[in-house]
């Protein structure tokens, strides 16, 4: 798919969690949240990780940035193994890869104005000299489409979509080469969603940013990602260029994800349930625990 050397490359990643049956229970089960995943991402490319909750997509994203320690495997960022780095070096390398979270309110300090949120990473990573920080903060706000006076306001004074722009601006501050965005638009309504997706695509093209976009909804990735990996129970069940996933989905789970996307088909649910009732009875389950 690409001949450029990968920016990020993972081999055989495994992450297992212990599921206790309560403190006094002898029952100990394990969950393989990530079960042998290989992945590579070129500079400036957008790869989507799609699957329902419990599919392991978030854990995988966290393992790649070493926010979670994988049990096995290897993660190369610009050819350097991340999993064996000491904490100090890792902190330096973090400049190169940043994360955007689902609910920016969780990652923003409610008592801090927006300006200092953006200034902090600039200072920590010494991105610009101290006298240029204010200027750079203004540039970052402009980059994500927020007014310059946003710097003086508090996070709660913004709408959901604007807060997500703040989260993105903060992630961009250290000038990373890779953005990992975990469900960045799932909490937003349709009108706002489209605008934030537009922003990410624009950043990818303008800044040459690589984006790992994590979502449960395939509809969100169509206009943004070049490739899609579908995760199911910790494994990659399908991996293809985005257009192919939509035009010729091969795995039954991918087809199910595509069907589940609500579209403007008046009366669809009634028709489809009536049709299913005529055929074999299928019972909808929820697939796995928490």
């Amino acid at each position, binding site marked *: 798919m690409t001949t450029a050397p990968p920016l990020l490359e993972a081999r055989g990643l495994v992450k297992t969690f212990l599921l206790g049956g309560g403190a006094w229970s002898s029952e100990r089960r394990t969950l393989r949240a990530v079960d042998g995943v290989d992945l590579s991402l070129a500079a400036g490319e957008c790869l989507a990780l799609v699957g329902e*909750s419990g599919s392991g997509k978030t854990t995988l994203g966290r393992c790649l940035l070493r926010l979670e320690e994988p049990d096995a495997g290897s993660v190369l960022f610009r050819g350097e193994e991340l999993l064996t780095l000491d904490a100090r070096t890792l902190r330096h390398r973090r400049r190169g890869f940043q994360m955007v979270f689902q609910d920016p309110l969780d990652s923003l300090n409610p008592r801090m104005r927006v300006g200092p949120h953006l200034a902090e990473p600039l200072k920590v990573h010494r991105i610009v000299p101290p006298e240029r920080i204010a200027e750079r903060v203004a540039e970052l706000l402009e980059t994500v489409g927020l007014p310059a006076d946003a710097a003086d306001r508090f996070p709660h004074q913004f709408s959901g979509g604007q807060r997500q722009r703040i989260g993105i601006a903060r992630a961009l501050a250290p000038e990373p080469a890779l953005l990992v965005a975990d469900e960045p638009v799932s909490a937003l309504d349709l009108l706002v969603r489209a605008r934030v997706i537009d922003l990410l695509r624009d950043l990818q093209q303008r800044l040459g940013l690589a984006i790992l976009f994590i979502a449960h909804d395939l509809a969100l990735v169509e206009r943004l990602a070049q490739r899609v990996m579908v995760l199911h129970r910790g494994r990659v069940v399908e991996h293809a260029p985005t257009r192919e996933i939509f035009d010729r989905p091969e795995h039954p789970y991918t087809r199910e994800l*595509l069907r589940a996307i609500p*579209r*403007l088909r008046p*009366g669809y649910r009634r028709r489809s349930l009536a049709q299913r009732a005529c055929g074999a009875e299928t019972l909808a389950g*929820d697939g796995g625990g*928490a």
Partner: protein
Amino acid sequence: MPGLLEIDRLTVTSRDRSGRPMVLVDEVSLGVGAGEIVGLVGASGAGKSLTAFAVLDLLPPGVERAGGRILFEGEDLTGLGPRGLHRIRGRRIAMVFQEPASALNPTFTIGFQVAEAVRAHQPRGERASREGVRRQVVGLLDRVALPDAARRLRSYPHELSGGQRQRVVLAMALACGPSLLLADEPTTALDVTTQAQILDLLEELRRDLGLGVLLITHDLPVVAETCDRVVVLHQGRVVEEGSVAEVFSHPADDRTRELLAAAVEAAPSVSSALSEPPEAAP
């Protein structure tokens, strides 16, 4: 076909910081018939949830109903006192919310909580036996297709997935055999796959129990696929109303067109094999 619920020129007001009155819901009229699913759509802050809260007199402090009538099965709920409303709330009209975890007590098992709902709504003097209640609880959890219901009775809410929790909340809502369900963004916090299952469940409840449903959502595609009729709210007013087929093919209001355009833009283009109802599983 309305008749089950008829909201007639409902007005809800509050006051801003300087004490000036603000109109949050402005003469909203809408109806829901038995066995009908009506979508109430609009952007955040359009007054969707307040309209539903007003039906059960559950408005937040400082927000009040300033006018209009709310007829439920022909009876005006606005004239009922707390005792009269108690007879309706939870028994004839049930409500479910966006975040199922907030409707469940984290310290009790789901079996206990559904049983509580069953007992709370039993007629006086007709206390069922423990075994009878248990059977009803399992029946309700089966009805909402909670997998392995009998074994799940002793699970706590945190041990269930978001979709399973919403099923439990629906089971509690159905415990009293309501004729109307107010569902406020019931699938917004869920995965698309789980959302599809919960919406299928609403349709089955409508079909099998003749339940009337007022489905509040900002998601137009969800309304298109699930509802019979749609009411579009904008800044507290009804800007458009009609059958789903009619409104979505010929939207008359600019606000509706804008919401539709966003939905069309967000919709994926998928191969035709997937745009029709799925074939039955082998």
